[in-house]
């Protein structure tokens, strides 16, 4: 199998991640509850991961790193903390259902989705500026579109929010581990991300990086191993947002995944994926029937590309590619808003998304196979 679905999850993990998970499974008990060696080891695993993440994502202290089970979980915590019935919420035109469905579930929210021309950074920046003529209560912006790999002007959006003291929630699902993401530099209220994509950790892990002083509301309540006499959740992080036993083995794997990203070098990963995706784009544009969707400029994209084939069903093409051993995803990618913005809501697209482990030879094989399918 040639795996081209890293935007969903990075299937190939460093061997060190697998080893760490195994080791934690065998040696770690429940963290933050007991005072025996296996419990202490578990606590240490969590702390090391918080430190690694705080360092990579510009948080001042490890308690600003909250463990979640996914980016969706982190986004739910953030959105349900800041958005109230009647709130005016400005979002980008590329948000995932993790954002839009969560907003929809809060009654009476006025959601303003903003976008310029599709994949136009300057247009998007202007659209956000326009939306700020009435100051929003909350802004939510994904860093990178999960469908098109398009990098949104999140820095400029963060500047707007900071100038007007508007809470900003950033969805870094596709950028964490690939692009620079810094809580300090953005000044965002919080940044949500999965642990199992660009950070190369196991599924069931996610991080919510929270600015100092933010008071977020837990979506889960229960035991934290702290202030147990009280029947309310602790008012301090990370305990306030981390009820129940942590998935220590998965977090141990995530910690090593983050270290692997640091050691490979985020810039090297980005430049490798960009080089491959540019080659793929050029090759796909050679097929008359194929329409490649996404930003024109290389610097506006990471290693994710969407395309569709004129007159063909995207799911059927992806199905035929799967039969030939290529793993990639078609359809709406849980982001109908992004497809509406790009004009692909009715057809969906086929998405190729890369990891550091993909090679030129794999993509060449993909192009050859697609070519054969299109000839039929």
């Amino acid at each position, binding site marked *: 199998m040639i795996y081209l679905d890293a935007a969903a999850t990075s299937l190939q993990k460093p061997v060190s991640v697998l080893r760490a998970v195994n080791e934690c499974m065998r040696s770690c008990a429940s963290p*933050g509850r007991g005072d025996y060696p296996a419990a*202490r080891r578990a*606590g240490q695993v*969590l702390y090391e991961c918080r430190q690694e993440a705080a360092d990579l994502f510009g948080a001042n202290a*490890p*308690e600003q790193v909250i463990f979640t089970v996914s980016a969706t979980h982190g986004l739910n915590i953030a959105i349900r903390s800041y958005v109230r019935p009647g709130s005016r919420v400005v979002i980008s035109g590329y948000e995932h259902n993790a954002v839009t469905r969560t907003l929809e579930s809060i009654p009476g929210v006025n959601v303003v989705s903003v976008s310029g021309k599709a994949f136009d950074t300057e247009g998007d920046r202007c659209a956000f500026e326009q939306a700020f003529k009435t100051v929003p209560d909350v802004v939510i912006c994904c860093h990178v579109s999960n469908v098109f790999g398009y990098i949104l002007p999140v820095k400029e959006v963060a500047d707007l929010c900071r100038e007007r003291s508007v809470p900003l929630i950033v969805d870094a699902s596709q950028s964490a581990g690939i692009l620079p993401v810094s809580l300090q530099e953005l000044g965002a209220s919080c940044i949500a991300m999965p642990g199992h994509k660009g950070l190369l950790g196991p599924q069931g892990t996610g991080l919510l990086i929270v600015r100092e002083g933010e008071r977020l509301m837990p979506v889960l309540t229960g035991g934290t191993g*702290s*202030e147990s*006499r009280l029947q309310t959740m602790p008012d301090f992080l990370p*305990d306030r947002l981390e009820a129940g036993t942590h998935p220590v083995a998965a977090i141990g794997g995530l910690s090593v995944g983050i270290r692997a990203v640091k050691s490979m070098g985020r810039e090297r990963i980005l430049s490798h994926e960009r080089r491959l995706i540019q080659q793929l784009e050029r090759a796909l544009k050679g097929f008359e029937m194929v329409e490649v969707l996404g930003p024109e400029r290389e610097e506006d994209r990471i290693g994710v590309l969407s395309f569709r084939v004129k007159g063909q069903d995207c799911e059927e093409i992806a199905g035929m590619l799967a039969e030939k051993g290529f793993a990639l995803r078609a359809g709406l990618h849980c982001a109908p808003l992004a497809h509406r913005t790009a004009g692909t809501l009715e057809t969906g697209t086929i998405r190729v998304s890369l990891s550091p482990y993909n090679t030129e030879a794999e993509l060449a094989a993909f192009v050859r196979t697609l070519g054969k399918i299109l000839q039929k």
Partner: protein
Amino acid sequence: MLYYLIVCRSLTFAQRTAAVLGRAGIPAAIRRTPAAIAERGCSYSVKLSQKNLSKALVILRKVELTPRQIYITEADGSYREVSL
């Protein structure tokens, strides 16, 4: 042996406190807070030898990790809160 306990509100704070002190060359061990002094229920404390307390407090204040409560052990094994 008599020692001090810096009571921390969570394991993470205890870990951070111990890490900061460790980097400054002050041995600091994390342990569960004895039930007798855990007013709000479970928590973790950082155990320090008597001779290191004042140096530790200076270091912790510098990194804005001011302890909430500090206890000293008494000869009979009980704990007495130390006013900061």
